[in-house]
């Protein structure tokens, strides 16, 4: 999930953007992880995520979330849940600590807010990874407005042109910001695309037009 590391945006916007996932280690604690992952996903769903994903499906491409859960096995790719509400993350962390799955848990989000949440649950973070930004031919990149949308899919499945088209469709009144956000969420197979945040960014793009 380096795919969740390089999300761009203002601190205010990123403060409502969290991705949480379990990550088993092959040869150490991967055997039997499927049932734990399913329990994790059900817990996450009870806390109101804006997206979930894994196994090539997300909340907006799976016919229903039970299909996604049913496909989980010990060899499954990482299953992630995306939230806008830090309090939902706090509740989920408390539940995961109590459940004691013994599988590594990671959260991508604002470092200070995540640290506060962990300390409130008596957890001292173990390891951390930060983005150092973008180097090289940055003049080839699109506007910040576009990048704030597309970097929510770190695998690059949401194209710059798709974001531009959806911004235009909202400006023209052909789609609502929510509808456009749903279309943008489809290509992101990991479920890391934050629909609430995309809706806000699209609405803001129209205001600025």
């Amino acid at each position, binding site marked *: *999930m*380096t*795919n969740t*590391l*390089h*999300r*761009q945006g203002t601190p205010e916007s*990123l403060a409502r953007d969290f991705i949480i996932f379990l990550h*088993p*280690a092959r040869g*150490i*604690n991967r055997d039997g992880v499927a049932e734990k992952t399913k329990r994790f996903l059900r817990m996450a769903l009870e806390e109101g995520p804006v997206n979930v994903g894994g196994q*090539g499906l997300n909340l907006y491409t799976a016919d229903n979330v039970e299909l996604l859960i049913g496909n989980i096995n010990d060899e499954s*790719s*990482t299953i992630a849940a995306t939230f806008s509400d830090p309090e939902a993350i706090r509740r989920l962390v408390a539940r*995961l*600590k109590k459940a*004691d799955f013994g*599988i*590594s*848990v*990671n*959260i*991508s*989000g*604002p*470092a*200070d807010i*995540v*640290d506060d949440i*962990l300390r409130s649950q008596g957890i*001292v*973070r*173990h*390891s*951390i*990874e*930060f*983005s*150092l*930004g*973008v*180097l*090289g*031919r*940055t003049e080839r*990149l699109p506007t910040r407005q576009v990048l704030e949308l597309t970097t929510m899919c770190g*695998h*690059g*499945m949401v*194209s*710059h*042109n*798709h974001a*531009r*088209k959806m911004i235009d*469709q909202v400006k023209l009144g052909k789609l609502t910001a929510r509808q456009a956000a749903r*279309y943008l969420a489809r*290509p992101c*197979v990991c479920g890391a695309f934050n629909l609430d945040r995309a809706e806000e960014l699209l609405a803001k793009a129209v205001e600025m037009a």
Partner: protein
Amino acid sequence: MKIDQNKCVGCGNCVPVCSMGVISVVGGKSRVNEEECVECNTCYRTLRNEGYNPTLVRLLRWTLKQFHLAYDPPPDVCPTGALTPPRLEWPRSLRAEFSDPTIKHSTTGTGGRGTSEIKSNDVTGRLQAGDIGLVAELGRPGLGARFRDLEKVAKALAAAGVRFEANNPVTYLMTDKSTGTLRQDVLNEKVMSAIIECRTDLAHLPEVLAALRRAAGEIETVISAGIAARCNADGSVPFADLVRESGFTLSPNAKTNLGLGRPLYEERQALASAVAGRD
């Protein structure tokens, strides 16, 4: 990606969803610039196949046009299922392995772009106190990268003394891990992005970051760079000051490993020591 020219009705829905912007409508049909396509399959996965008969759709479009109306399908469909992921041969197969997150790498047997990094560091102990993990993802966001640029950056980092992560798919393509040299037959292949993962220590971090910055000036794409470490016992970040002094800025957001994995690396080491002592 292959677009069946007999089925394509030129609706253009695949044009904006193309991750590399290399599909265009020419002569009323979508065409892919194969040289620039990274075989990510995003168009195929994202656009639902409506399975309509192409002849009927063309007739409908023609009829509507006579009344100055346009056929405007929803933006998430391919009306006739004209998109087909092709069977790829080496080295082009690397494009799909590095670009489509649903495909596993033939070299490492894992999916995604890189390795577990710090995601299971609490149980693997991959990064110990004093170790620094560095990731340089070329092509991200959204530009793509050729392996010839990856080699330039890998060589620069190797010269700065880094150790490349063994199970990373880019490392698998190296013919010499001490110099960062890649296989010559892959250099012209283009991928959505690829991650060089390496390790250094706090003492060498400024030199490695300087090498990364220099190398970034010599390539045709962008690098999304990241840095990772095990936190100090109080949860503080060991590299924060060094990064700042090196002219870089840490992002406000980060990926945090909570340390809830079991058995912890230290527990496994203690157990292994106890077993060794008993023997």
